[in-house]
Every structure is written in structure tokens, then in C-alpha cells.
């Protein structure tokens, strides 16, 4: 096995193992910190796939932003709510878990279907791009490409997302205002 393969299996093991621990662990804080390891392992997998920009973005957005926000929400919430969450019965097979179990199973079927139908080794668009030399090399900068594409081809989705985020901001500001200050 080459070093890259070894690294891949190691990262995959770390990611899956920590993800399992996140789901199983009864200690909520530990789960959140374990999630950090999952995200980091995922970033490592992206690096192995030569998608360094995606890897770094993953860390900036998920670790630096979302995970810290989750922690904030956790630390600011009351003790009663947390205890109720931790006291949930952890029996794997029970009627309460049936919907989630079904959902997970269906999702698994979809995923397996995708993997078997994709035929990653000879994708049509990959072959075309290779044929016309329309590819970015390992050592070339890809941020210029991403920037140009965001501002031309994908401008509408980009702007739609920014409007969505703006709405979320306005909503958050409205919700956090005190009652008597309204009007």
C-alpha cells in the first residue's frame, strides 16, 4: 500500500470512528468536541483528493464558525434542558426510534445506489475535460478559477444565498430585540 492509501484509510477510520462516537456518546459536550475530529478528518480526506480549498473552507466554516456556535448554544442553555436531553433512553431497538431508523435505512439505500451507479472511474464529463485539456494542475492556483466562476456563471445562486443570509440576520436581530423596545 502506498502512503496515500494508508493516509486515506487512516483518515476514513478517524472520520467514521469519531462520527460514531458523536452519535453514541451520552455526554453532549464530548459529542460536540468529537464532531470537531470528524470535521478535521473530513478536511484531511479533501486534502487527499487535492481539493485543498474545500478542505480549508470546511475548517473555516464548520470548525471556526458553526461548531463554536453550537458550543455557545450549549453553554448558554439551561441545566434542565440539557439533563432532559441526556436522560433519553438509549435503547437501540424501540418504537420511538422507528422513524429515524427507517429514514437512516432509506438514506443508506440511496447512498449505496449512488455509489454503484456513479461509475466514478469513467465519467463522461471527466473524459471530455481530459480530452480538451480543460483541467487545473495540482500546483496551479484554483482560487482565481473559483472566483471567476462565482462572479459569472454562478452569480444568481451566489446572490440568492447572500439574500438568504441577509434574511437570517434580520430575523435574528428582530428575535433578539427586547419586547418593550418594539414599536
Amino acid at each position, binding site marked *: 500500500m502506498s502512503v496515500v492509501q494508508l493516509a486515506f484509510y487512516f483518515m476514513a477510520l478517524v472520520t467514521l470512528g469519531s462520527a460514531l462516537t458523536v452519535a453514541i456518546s451520552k455526554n453532549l*459536550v*464530548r459529542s460536540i*468536541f468529537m464532531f*470537531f475530529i470528524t470535521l478535521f478528518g473530513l478536511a484531511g480526506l479533501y486534502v487527499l483528493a487535492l481539493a*485543498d*480549498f474545500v478542505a*480549508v*473552507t470546511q*475548517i*473555516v466554516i464548520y*470548525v*471556526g*464558525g458553526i*461548531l*463554536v456556535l453550537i*458550543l*455557545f448554544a450549549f*453553554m448558554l442553555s439551561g441545566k434542565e434542558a440539557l439533563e432532559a436531553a441526556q436522560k433519553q433512553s438509549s435503547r437501540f431497538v424501540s418504537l420511538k426510534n422507528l422513524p429515524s431508523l427507517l429514514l437512516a435505512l432509506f438514506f443508506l439505500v440511496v447512498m449505496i445506489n449512488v455509489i454503484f451507479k456513479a461509475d466514478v472511474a469513467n465519467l463522461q464529463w471527466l473524459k471530455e475535460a481530459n480530452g480538451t485539456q480543460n483541467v487545473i494542475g495540482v*500546483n*496551479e*492556483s*484554483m*482560487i*482565481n478559477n473559483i472566483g471567476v466562476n462565482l462572479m459569472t456563471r454562478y452569480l444568481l445562486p451566489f446572490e440568492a444565498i447572500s439574500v438568504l443570509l441577509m434574511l437570517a440576520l434580520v430575523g435574528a436581530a428582530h428575535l433578539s430585540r427586547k419586547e418593550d423596545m418594539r414599536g
Partner: protein
Amino acid sequence: MNFYVTYFLTAAGLFGFVGAFTLFGVWGERKISAFIQNRLGPTETGKFGSLQTLADIVKLLQKELIIPAAADKVLFLMAPGIIFIAVYLGFAALPWAPGLVPSQINIGLYYIFAIISIETLGILMAGWGSNNKYSILGAMRSAAQIISYEIPAGFAVISAVMIAQTLNLQTIAMQQGILSSETSKFLGMWDVSKIGGILSWNVFQAPHLLVAFVIYFIASLAESNRAPFDIPEAESELVAGFHTEFTGPQFALVFLAEYSMMFLVSMVGVILFLGAWNTPLPNIGSVTLATWTTGTVWGIVWILAKTMALVAVQMWIRWTLPRLRVDQLMNLCWKVLTPLAFACMLLSGVWRLWVM
């Protein structure tokens, strides 16, 4: 397999440097604070007290590692390590001299910003793991502060990146001196590609970057939890903030992280705005000072000198200005620095389109 050995040697060398810098930095800070407060500072151990921190660290490492009974042991033990490793990983992408960079990454600057944000997580971990209200208050304050100040810092950095058109730190460094393959213009009008020196630094290539640099510097003080932004460890109200419960080697790691962070943010500032490893001396006619003082050794000398100067300014500010209150801190960030940083970014775009 030879290059693996090189990787490990580089990593060990950087670690050694960080340790040495912390020892030197703590001593320097005590001397500077003593000078500002009209005292003598450490004088007994070694010449001018220079071995004082070495003695301190020996004492610190011998101390017992105390874990509070009610603490979350795993988180408590891991937190200082994560705080330090987050900062230490950032050093991988910093260029030291022409052709001398531990890891040549296309998106080096972005990588550093990402990896630094992990420090927040380590601090929250320390605060929660300690199971102490002072710790958790300090950790929450620290996280809030770091997240807020990442915005003006980010936009100040983006305005420099828009001028440089790359995230590769070595390329950004290269553009600010005589080794540049592009033309660099002093204030956008005088071609100084062959003259180099201080005239081709980014802050003089585009003057609004001077404002961006000041914004970045202020924000970087907040990101490394240094006074006047040290409310996370405000001694008068929070004992020692998130590291209240740490003793011995763990406390040493937290300290190491703080000083490495100071060095890291200063070095990033130097690379982006103050000419990186380029010499400040310009070529004047046949007296080619810039050509004489450019090279691997000179590069290391210049970047170390510039970064140390910035670190000294950080210490100077710490011992001169009083601590900001939390509302003043947020006012400064959101109402002053962020709009200014946005203006800088806009100016950068205009500058790139019409002047360069």
C-alpha cells in the same frame, strides 16, 4: 524517504524556534514593562536577568499537574495541547526568506486563518473542562472576541490580497521587492521595480493599505487576547480567565501558545503589509543597497527584525493602554473597524482597476 526526514527536522526546528522565542519574549516583555513602569525587572539570574525565564520554566515543569476533582478530565487535559497545536500549525506556511518556506501552499494565507480559528475551540474546551465559573466566563468572552475581530482582520487582509492577487504567502512576499517579476509602483505612479527597498512594500504600493495594516494590527491584538483586549483573562475580575485551573506543564503550554500567537500574527502582518523578507534599503544609482542586502540569510534577518519590532509594539501597547470594557470592545469592532475595513476593501478594488 529523505524528504520525510526533512519534514520532521523542519517541524522540530520550528518548535525549537517557538520555544526559544517564548523564553526570549517573556524576558523581553518583563524588561519592557519594567522600563515603562520605571523599574528594573529581572536582574539576578544571568546577565541582565536573561536566564530568568529559563529558571521559571524549569520551576514550572517540576510543578504537580493538578486536575480539579469536578473537571471533565479528558477535555481538561487535551485543551492546552489543542490551543498550542492550532497556533503551531500556522507556522508551516510562513515564508522566511527567498526560497525558504516550510510548506509552499497555494492558499497559505487562508490556511493560516483557518488553523488559527481552532484556537477558539481549544479555549472553549479549556473553559468548559475546568468546571469553574471564572474559566467559562473567560472562555466565552474570548470566543466572542476572537469571532468578532476575525471580521475586520479578514477584510483588512482581503484588501491586501486584492492588491497581490494571490493567497500564496511566498508570492506575496516576492512582489514587494527587487525579486518581483511584476512591476511594482510607489503610490501607484513611480515604477520602483528596480529600486526596491521600503518603497515597494505593500503599504507604500497602495497607501490605503496603511489603514488596513492598522486595522489588522488592532484586530490581531484582540485575536491573541492581549491588552488592551485582554478581558478574557482580566485579572481584576476573572482571576486568570480560561487558564485559571492550569498548573505546571499545562500552564506552560498555554503561555507558549500566547507568545507563538503574538509572533504568528505579527509575522503575517509583516508578510502582507511590510515587505516580508525584503530589505528596507533601496537601490540608489550605483549604490545597490537592495541587491546587496537580499538573500537567504538577509531574508531571515529582515523578517525576524521586522516581526520582533511589531511584537515589541504589542508589548508597548499592553503596558501603556488600559483594558477596554466589553461594550467598548464590541463598539470598536463593529462600528469603527469593520466599516473602515470595508472601505479599504472597496478602495483596493478601485486601486486595482484604475491605478495599477
